[in-house]
């Protein structure tokens, strides 16, 4: 099995032991005109290196909000969220950005690739922001595109790629800075079944290389590939099934 290319070489080491995220009783309440709405209520969740977690539940149950909180883009209203032992709520916006840049990768349902950049340039972006030298980031971008099977499409723009190819580029981009945690919000939501299965297999490979993976999905087949499946309802984790 091919591993996610490391930042300095094309082969990474195995997973390291330790907690990546430690969420204790986190809640998220939104102020709405009709009154406060609790999107996530008292969730406690521990994510360790190499975990493969799927979050399922009906629409509006708080899955995406939880994912955004784990990804440090949504602040919790109450509770404690530690990332690699650091209390995220104590970090400045700049430090949280840096944390996301270096430690967290995001894969979105709508890919959000930049249309004016090629696949390779899209993958290079997070490395460019992290200050990786041009030659090194170009080399790694090609390695990552090879990893997701798109080396031949490196100079194509998103408009020249299929949905599955765009999502693979987005996964390569999310892996650019070798994150410890990869968060995917409905990664197969815009894809047909066969393409979705290819993306699921790719995410499995990423996880097997040691990157902790949290997927929010409605897709039962995708969720069933995870080691832990969390069922959410009304902002709470209703059940957890460990495979």
């Amino acid at each position: 099995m091919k591993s996610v290319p490391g930042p300095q070489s094309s082969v990474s080491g195995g997973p390291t032991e330790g907690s990546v995220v430690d969420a204790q009783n986190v809640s998220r309440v939104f102020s709405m005109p009709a009154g406060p709405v609790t999107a996530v209520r008292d969730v406690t969740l521990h994510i360790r290196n190499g975990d493969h977690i799927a979050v399922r539940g009906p629409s509006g149950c708080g899955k995406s909000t939880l994912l955004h909180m784990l990804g440090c883009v949504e602040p919790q209203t109450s509770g404690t969220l530690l990332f690699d032992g650091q209390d995220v709520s104590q970090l400045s916006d700049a430090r949280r950005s840096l944390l996301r840049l270096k430690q967290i990768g995001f894969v979105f349902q709508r890919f959000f690739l930049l249309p004016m950049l090629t696949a390779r340039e899209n993958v290079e972006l997070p490395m460019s922001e992290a200050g990786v030298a041009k030659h090194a980031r170009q080399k790694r971008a090609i390695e990552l595109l090879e990893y997701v099977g798109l080396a031949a499409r490196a100079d194509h723009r998103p408009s020249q790629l299929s949905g599955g190819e765009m999502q693979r580029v987005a996964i390569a981009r999310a892996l650019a800075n070798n994150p410890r945690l990869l968060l995917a919000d409905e990664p197969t939501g815009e894809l047909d079944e066969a393409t979705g299965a290819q993306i699921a297999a790719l995410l499995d490979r990423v996880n097997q290389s040691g990157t902790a993976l949290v997927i929010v999905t409605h897709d039962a087949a995708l969720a069933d590939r995870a080691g832990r499946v969390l069922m959410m309802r009304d902002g709470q984790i209703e059940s957890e099934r460990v495979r």
Partner: protein
Amino acid sequence: MNAIGFAWRSMVRQPARAALGILGVAAVGALLFDMLLLSRGLIVSMQDLLDRGGWDVRVSMGELPGSGLRIPDAVETAEAISTLPSVQAALVMRSATAQIDRASGEPLRASFQGVTTRSSDPAGSRLRAPWTILRGRDAEAPDEVVIDEKIASESRLEPGSEITMRASCNADVEALPATRLKVVGVAEFPFQITNESTTGGTLDALRAACGGNAGTEADLILVTSTSDADSTAAAIRTLRPEVRAATNTEVVGRLQQTGFTYFRQISSVLTTVTVSFAVLLITVLLTVSVNQRLGEIAALRALGFSRMRVVKDVLSESALIVGIGGLLSLPLGLLLASGLDRILKGMPGIPVALHFFVFETQALAVHIGLLVATAIIAALYPMRIVSTLPIAATLRDEVIG
């Protein structure tokens, strides 16, 4: 990819919008540049005209030279002034209206400027009259005259030709005597009015042409200082309290307080309006551009792009649009200024050599400064949008949308 490179790609992504912004800035920038050239153009041009020939103090009877009041006993006054230690030379200048007979058709109307120099310094005696000889030589004898290009071309006169002139030194003298004068040169007169003709010669030539009716008066005495013009003007005022002595800078200052101030006010108002247009144009373009990319920007923020970085991207895009548009505005502005200058110089009573739009490094610096300010101010609102963008809510909205 740095912020400028990123901004460039964002612009290229929407070429029509980028072109619209750049052309808009180029057009507005050209107008802005012209307003800046206009705001000081007359002053700079007038100062240049006054400084030509090296005469740095002007003595007259009125508040401003050319007011119509004449200096009595002008030659005697010039002689007295020329004895001042700080004065190199004093030139007496008297104007008369004249008609030049033509072989066919109506006589040509012209003004005749008669001058004479007084100096206690031998070098000062050699100072030339306040006109520039283009062909031939300057008039030195009482029967010699220099003419301008207009007379030369319209009457087909060249150095060596002879003319018959009827000059009037006093408005009430109607029976004009005819005088035969020899054309010895073609000259450029700095204060010659558009569509009017001018001739020049010695004061004796003017007196002769006026049939002895010139009197001892003169319109103006031009003075060249050996040192500071301010102290020379002060010395002249002490010597002859009845006359007004002003340095070229003081004359320009007085003109600024009177007629020129309108142009400055108009240019200030139009500058403010054009800058406001530029700010609004860029703000609208950037705001639309940013609003169409909110999902991408939120995704970049989620991927770890800092708030400062996305703000820099917007500012860079603004800087690129304004920068490229601003560069185009310079040749466009100069071209426009040249056309507007021609139109404004068509107004009656404007000296040919006077310009309304004059290029100055200072104007260019102010232009660049205003464009930089425009780029920053125009980007403020879109920068605020991206800096306060709620990442999670935007990503959610994009999916729902």
